[in-house]
């Protein structure tokens, strides 16, 4: 499904503060897996997400999605396969566009945009149905600006936007970290619901080990650009592991 082969990535190449993030890094994710990535700050988790989404390109190595080599595709070209939710709820939607305009943009993620109208009766009804599933009561506010929604609501809509066209891979980069505990739980439940309903392959970064255990079907720990742990065992005792490997993980 998703395959990263021998990835090399350095930042600030050939400079005094050169930082090697990945050296000969490989990862293979199977269809339908819900992979949770944990690791300390600066371990390379977000860089991994960015490499997959194409917002940064590797120095060396290859990335495959479903046997298609996407290594040299731009971020917007890979968007055909990838849905993405950012940590910052403000990053995933356009605040000055209406909710329906945002959704209509998401609906064309894998298509070519044309000069036909972005919103019509049919897709408006479809948006209303989909928003109803979020149970936030915003299905009647299609024409409100996105910017008036709360952070939690916006993140829920962003999640919907990322999955409106079923992605081959869903990237969740600490997407609940900026929310209050209640919204955070709600978004996580919603995430699980959408993922299991549509059988989406997903990658989620989190600092919360309980969530990692609860939601992940596979847990990967990254440290210094290497995979320190890769397990399907949900009963794993993190505390022991952290002590043993001398790793700092921020437990929330």
């Amino acid at each position, binding site marked *: 499904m998703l395959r990263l082969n021998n990835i090399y990535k350095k930042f600030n190449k050939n400079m005094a503060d050169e930082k090697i993030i990945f050296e000969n890094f490989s990862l293979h994710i199977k269809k339908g897996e819900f992979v949770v990535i944990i690791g300390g700050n600066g371990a390379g988790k977000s860089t991994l997400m960015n490499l997959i*989404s194409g*917002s940064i390109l590797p120095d060396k190595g290859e990335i495959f999605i479903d046997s298609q080599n996407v290594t040299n595709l*731009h*971020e*917007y*070209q890979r*968007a*055909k396969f*990838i849905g*993405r939710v*950012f940590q910052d709820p403000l*990053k*995933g*939607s*356009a*605040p*000055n*566009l*209406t909710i329906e*305009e*945002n959704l*209509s*943009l*998401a609906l*064309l*993620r*894998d*298509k070519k*945009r*044309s*000069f*036909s*109208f*972005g*919103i019509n009766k049919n897709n408006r009804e479809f948006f209303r149905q989909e928003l109803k599933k979020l149970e936030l009561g915003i299905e009647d506010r299609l*024409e409100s600006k996105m910017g008036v929604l709360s952070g939690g609501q916006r993140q829920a809509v962003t999640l919907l*936007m990322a999955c409106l066209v079923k992605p081959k891979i869903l990237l969740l980069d600490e997407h609940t970290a900026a929310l209050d505990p209640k919204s955070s739980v709600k978004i996580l439940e919603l995430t699980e619901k959408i993922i299991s309903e549509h059988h989406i392959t997903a990658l989620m970064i989190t600092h919360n080990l309980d969530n990692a255990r609860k939601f992940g079907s596979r847990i990967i720990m990254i440290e210094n650009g290497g995979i320190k742990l890769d397990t399907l065992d949900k009963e794993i005792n993190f505390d022991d592991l952290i002590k043993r490997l001398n790793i700092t993980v921020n437990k929330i």
Partner: protein
Amino acid sequence: MQVLISTLSQGLIWTILTLGVFITFRILNFADMTVEGSLTFGGSLCAALMLRGVNPFLSLLIAGVLASLAGLVTGILNTKFKIQAILAGILTMIALYSVNLRIMGKANLSLLGKSTIFSAINNILPALNSNFVLKTFIIGLVICIISVVSLNLFFKTQIGLAVRATGDNEQMMRALGGNTDFKKILALMISSFFCGLAGALIAQSQGYADVNMGTGSIVIALASIVIGEAFLNFIKLKNKILSSLICMILGSIMYRIIIFIVLNLGMNPSDLKLFTACITAVLLGMPKLKKFKLKLGGNKNA
């Protein structure tokens, strides 16, 4: 009456420029200095074409289309060469100064005695034959309405929505599969098209093109935009984009009325640019100034 209509028609003609700058400044969130060059580019192209006997309507259109190339250059400098928006615009603007001199062959081209779109209307509405001011008004109004309607339609299309989203949240647009570089270039080209069209219209209405006609035009457009946005408190259509576009017309007209008033109050015309710059700065800073005032007035309410 004549003076009022003349002021209104000036406002209508300059609305086209305001619309062009609105696309970059407000929709794309891009401080585009190309305007000052592309306005003159449109004006000089139109004048040069007309002096070679090209139909005035056709000259207008060609001037606009060629002026959109200025936006293409700025867009490529910005998105492909990664030059900052403001600098990319300045580079194009400066380059166009020489281009404009080349096109005209000298600093100033007079259209004296040439038939313009304003005189061509005589054939359609013979009653207006001698009333130049009213003709300008009607033509200005027609062009404004066509521009506003077509821009409103464009921004509702899938591509138009993507352009707006690019200005609002570029990262999101890329994550949703949008080629944001292309969207920026497209918006800059449309903007330059309108700026060039405005230049051509201005040249035809004033009867000459001048290499310096664009100087300060960006500030006039910005002043019109911020004045126009004040009207958003009164024009609250369901269609937000259409409201904004209509406010651009009102803003451009209001700007002309303000200028007319201060000139009549005895302001020296050479001080106009200083005046325009000041009101633009104050209006752009209004949100911050309001906060400051709230702070000062805070004690009263406490």
